[in-house]
């Protein structure tokens, strides 16, 4: 479900639920939190790479999982997922997302919640939440920090899917690679960060924290509430019922 490997002072965390397109359920989120906390406390780790096993980075919340939950349970799960994504920003060490294949919904937000984002230029980036009936319930501050409020709102309306190149132009992605090259580029970038003085790298992350994450907790609480409201509407209920039955 979640694999943690090491290469010198770089930890490589891999989402490994290929049969669910690396979508997140409660166990995966809990495993991520545990792994991130452990790696942050490990003095032998200087940088963390977050990636997904093929076919892609992450397809977001596992709709099959949440489709079976009561609404209050869904909202609680999404809040926990949001807590996990904010944790990425509050770690003392830099976290680099390596995106191949796709980053969809919560997977899109999970990637940009990392400090640096590497993506193949052909990877598919899309937030499909509004078309299926609800506002993205967490991580919108990370989106605003990267692209500004106006572009963030446009992305949430989800009028179009992006490829890695579009995502790069918008500032969602920091480094573009050929398809199949994201992991190598992310690990090389992590290696360069790991070679820098630890105190200064950490001070830089801490210094920018108020601007990058400033209202993230309040945003997440508000988005969760809007999400709950949206889920009572017919469009969202139809989506949840469709996936829950599968």
């Amino acid at each position, binding site marked *: 479900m979640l694999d943690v490997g090491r290469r010198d002072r770089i930890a490589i965390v891999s989402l490994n639920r290929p049969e669910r397109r690396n979508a997140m359920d409660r166990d995966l989120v809990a495993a991520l939190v545990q792994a991130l906390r452990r790696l942050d406390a490990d003095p032998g780790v200087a940088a963390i790479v977050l990636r997904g096993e093929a076919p892609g980075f992450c397809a977001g919340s596992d709709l099959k999982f949440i489709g079976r939950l009561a609404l209050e349970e869904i909202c609680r799960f999404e809040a926990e997922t949001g807590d996990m994504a904010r944790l990425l920003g509050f770690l003392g060490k830099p976290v680099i997302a390596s995106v191949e294949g796709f980053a969809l919904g919560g997977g899109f937000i999970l990637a940009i919640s990392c400090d640096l984002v590497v993506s193949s230029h052909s990877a598919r980036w899309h937030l499909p939440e509004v078309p299926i009936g609800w506002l993205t319930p967490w991580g919108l501050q990370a989106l605003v920090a990267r692209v500004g409020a106006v572009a963030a709102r446009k992305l949430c309306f989800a009028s179009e899917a992006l490829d890695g190149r579009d995502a790069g132009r918008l500032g969602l992605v920091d480094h573009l690679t050929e398809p199949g090259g994201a992991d190598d580029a992310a690990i090389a970038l992590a290696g360069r960060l790991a070679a*820098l*003085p630890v*105190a200064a*790298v950490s*001070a*830089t992350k801490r*210094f920018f924290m108020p601007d990058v994450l400033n209202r993230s907790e309040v945003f997440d609480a508000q988005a969760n509430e809007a999400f709950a409201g949206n889920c009572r509407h017919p469009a969202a209920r139809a989506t949840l019922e469709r996936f829950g039955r599968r």
Partner: protein
Amino acid sequence: MLSRRQQGAVAILTIDRPNRRNALGTELMQALGAAFDVLEHDDGVAAIVVSASAPGFCAGSDLKELAAMDIAQMCRHEAETARIVRAIGFLEKPVVAAVSGFALGGGVGFAVGCDLVVTHAECRWHMPEVPNGWLPPWALASLSARVGPVAARRLVWASEPITGTEAHQLKLADYLVPHGDVESEAIALGERLAALPRVAVASTKRFFAPLINGGAEASDMLANRIFAENCQDATAKATLRKFGMRV
């Protein structure tokens, strides 16, 4: 050290310390602060261009001068440099930076402290502070105002130097022109601004100042404190000793 000339209503300040790669020493900073003050109150001046003699725009702090300081003196020196650069954002007149060759460390901070930035494709933009062992002690608010906090943090981590082309893509620079034309294009931009109604240009600068420079003082104070902390770290001390400081 710093020369001034005039073209129409545009005043051109040229940093001229090529033997120190146009580094921001105490004397140069005082001269810059005094020059901005004079130009702000000179009715014959409607726009200001800051340029530099070859080999490049500015190499940041003057390491030779730092060598004679202790850490506390260095922090005070950086705070004073920060104050003079921040004041650019609160002048009534627009200031254009003509960045050729290189902008390094405090040179990047100085460039983004100006209102508009002209550069060329091959220009080297780099912040070597984190590799040296410390957070840059000022200018991070101006950097964030230009590129947003996420890209600003990436640039400060400085795991790679960037070219003028990339600086322009990131909106660190506003105009990308051929190498030989950086100064003349900056002056032409100054002339276009100088031809506009002065009160409207000044009002525009004043209106956006809270958004662009509003938090700059607090940001610089915090960065200076973190810088001081980082300088106590072993890696940073090793770098400072390489500079010649006795720490």
